[in-house]
């Protein structure tokens, strides 16, 4: 057992070491040993090299490289010039943006407001349900009874039949709700994380456009180094991240050639297609992760959990489960704001300056602090066993880790099965999980 623990510890160390190396890439502040500082130097170097790649430097390099053949050389130089011209145009663009930026923003805002007003009018007019909803909110005497700090407050709600109900409201969230996500308001969770937000239809229009177009909707950044293996820059393409999407940019013309929507951003603000939902198939343990409230309705469908606004039916958050390919390179849903790693795994995965760890159905995720993107799957977990419940299907084979087999082996009166860091005792007759025999 001791050996196994040691081995596991070494494995944990092996995971931890790239973490410290990663720090260099971020230009993190120093603490730790010599090795770390050496790594940091390397990281910085690489970063520089990469920044050269993306900028005009690359064009220049190409131009000089082409000097060997005269004709081709001139063409290349030409191209280089073009590149340069384009760049200056970009700069101009930017300048123009700088000059007119405020105006344009204001204009857009104005339009946005109009749209919103129109929607509210609509609601008061022919949309009967919406109207009712509004009336209930305003007429039946919502009173602020108490302030909790300055963000959360408690509201006393009296319904038509005289029933009194209290509920706590997050101020940001309420503000977001009032705006309505579909009309340009950002879902509060994403807005807080600084990821920006954009409906998927809008994002698709950016394909074939210069990157600056997309950058208006959110600051675009190169992906953190830990994502290089997933969105790998090469001679033809590089990737930029922001606004809920990863954009693939063609190096030759600097136009967006493709995008990867990040779950949790792509469907937000859209009505939920009923075709996507098959709630009857929802694994029972999901309700513990995603409890319904009068305002948040969760729908499950084909491996995804959709958090919708109960009143409007619009999608607020899309939380895919691991089996559906969620995970690495994706946004961690904003609702996972607190440390929730199961006790059996806490010694391995503690939040640190670069990463935090969150448990969602199927896995413990390592999340990059800067980008809120999932940078690794720390551990895969199953749906889990529950004491007193039947053993789930698929555990007929003995699976206790080798180090514990001398103590926990199947006997006629008791079986042992390993699951998510625990060894469970199972009654062979009834197939009910009897107790937790050991915490690994």
């Amino acid at each position: 057992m001791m050996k196994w623990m040691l081995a596991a510890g070494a494995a944990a160390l092996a995971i931890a070491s790239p973490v410290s190396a990663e720090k260099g890439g971020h230009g993190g502040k120093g603490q730790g040993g010599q090795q770390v500082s050496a790594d940091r130097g390397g990281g910085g170097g690489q970063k520089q090299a990469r920044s050269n790649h993306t900028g005009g430097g690359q064009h220049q390099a190409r131009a000089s490289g082409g000097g060997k053949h005269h004709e081709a050389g001139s063409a290349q130089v030409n191209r280089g010039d073009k590149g340069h011209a384009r760049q200056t145009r970009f700069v101009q663009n930017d300048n123009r943006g700088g000059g007119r930026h405020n105006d344009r923003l204001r204009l857009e805002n104005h339009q946005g407001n109009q749209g919103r007003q129109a929607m509210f009018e609509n609601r008061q007019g022919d949309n009967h349900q919406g109207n009712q909803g509004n009336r209930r909110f305003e007429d039946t005497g919502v009173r602020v009874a108490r302030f909790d700090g300055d963000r959360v407050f408690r509201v006393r709600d009296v319904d038509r039949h005289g029933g009194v109900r209290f509920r706590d409201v997050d101020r940001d969230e309420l503000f977001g709700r009032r705006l309505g996500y579909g009309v340009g308001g950002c879902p509060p969770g994403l807005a807080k994380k600084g990821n920006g937000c954009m409906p998927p239809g809008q994002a698709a229009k950016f394909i074939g456009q210069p990157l600056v177009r997309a950058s208006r909707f959110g600051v675009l950044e190169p992906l953190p180094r830990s994502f290089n293996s997933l969105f790998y820059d090469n001679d033809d393409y590089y990737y930029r991240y922001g606004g809920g999407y990863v954009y693939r940019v063609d190096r030759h013309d600097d136009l967006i050639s493709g995008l990867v929507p990040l779950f949790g951003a792509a469907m937000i603000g859209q009505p939920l297609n009923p075709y996507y939902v098959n709630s009857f198939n929802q694994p029972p343990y999901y309700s513990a992760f995603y409890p319904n409230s009068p305002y948040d309705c969760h729908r499950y469908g084909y491996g995804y959990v959709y958090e919708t606004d109960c009143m409007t039916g619009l999608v607020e958050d899309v939380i895919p489960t691991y089996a559906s390919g969620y995970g690495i390179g994706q946004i961690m849903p904003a609702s996972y704001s607190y440390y929730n790693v199961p006790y059996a795994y806490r010694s391995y995965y503690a939040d640190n300056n670069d990463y935090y760890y969150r448990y969602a159905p199927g896995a413990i995720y390592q999340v990059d602090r800067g980008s809120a993107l999932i940078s690794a799957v720390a551990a895969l977990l199953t749906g889990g066993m529950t004491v007193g419940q039947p053993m789930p299907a698929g555990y007929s084979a003995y699976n206790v880790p080798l180090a514990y087999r001398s103590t926990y082996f199947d006997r006629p009166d008791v079986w042992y099965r390993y699951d998510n860091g625990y060894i469970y005792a199972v009654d062979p007759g009834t197939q009910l999980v009897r107790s937790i025999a050991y915490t690994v």
Partner: protein
Amino acid sequence: MRRSLIPLVLAAGALALSACNSQNQAHKDEAAKGSEAVKQAGDKTIAAGIDQNSSFFKATKAAGLDATLAGPGPYTVIVPDDAAFAKLPEGTLDGWMKPESRTELTRVLTYHILPGTVLASDIGKAIDAGNGKAVLATMGGGTLTATREGDKIILTDGDGHKATMAGTDETLANGVIHRVDGVLMPGKKA
């Protein structure tokens, strides 16, 4: 008469006990063998135990699961050989390697990972106990079906594809690897 009965009863009891002890001893021996295998593996993890140039390892890297398989686990990983990947329809593997199709790739790979350490002999015992069939839960949420064909263990996926297990347990620090000759597909989404 009564006096002569007592040793007899005692002897019967001792016999029963010794039978039980020998059974326990068998388990202990087996367990000791397992511990020895883990000791030999040292700190070599599943991620290190898979050939770094194999299609399976490249796929785990593309899905970002290589770090997971170097974690504490324990996991049982069913590793299809390169020939198995070559048997897939043209372009399948290349398609999986693209960032856009990481979803599909992850579903396929998590279908090859089982919770805990399941040795080939454990699957064999479960097949015998389950009237020739054992259902195995995967990390992806789906299940595999194990059956016997001669002295080999056959794994069948949701679509009915079959893969034969090599029958060797490659024990590593954080689990065990089984080699198979076919890629298993999780089938339609539940």
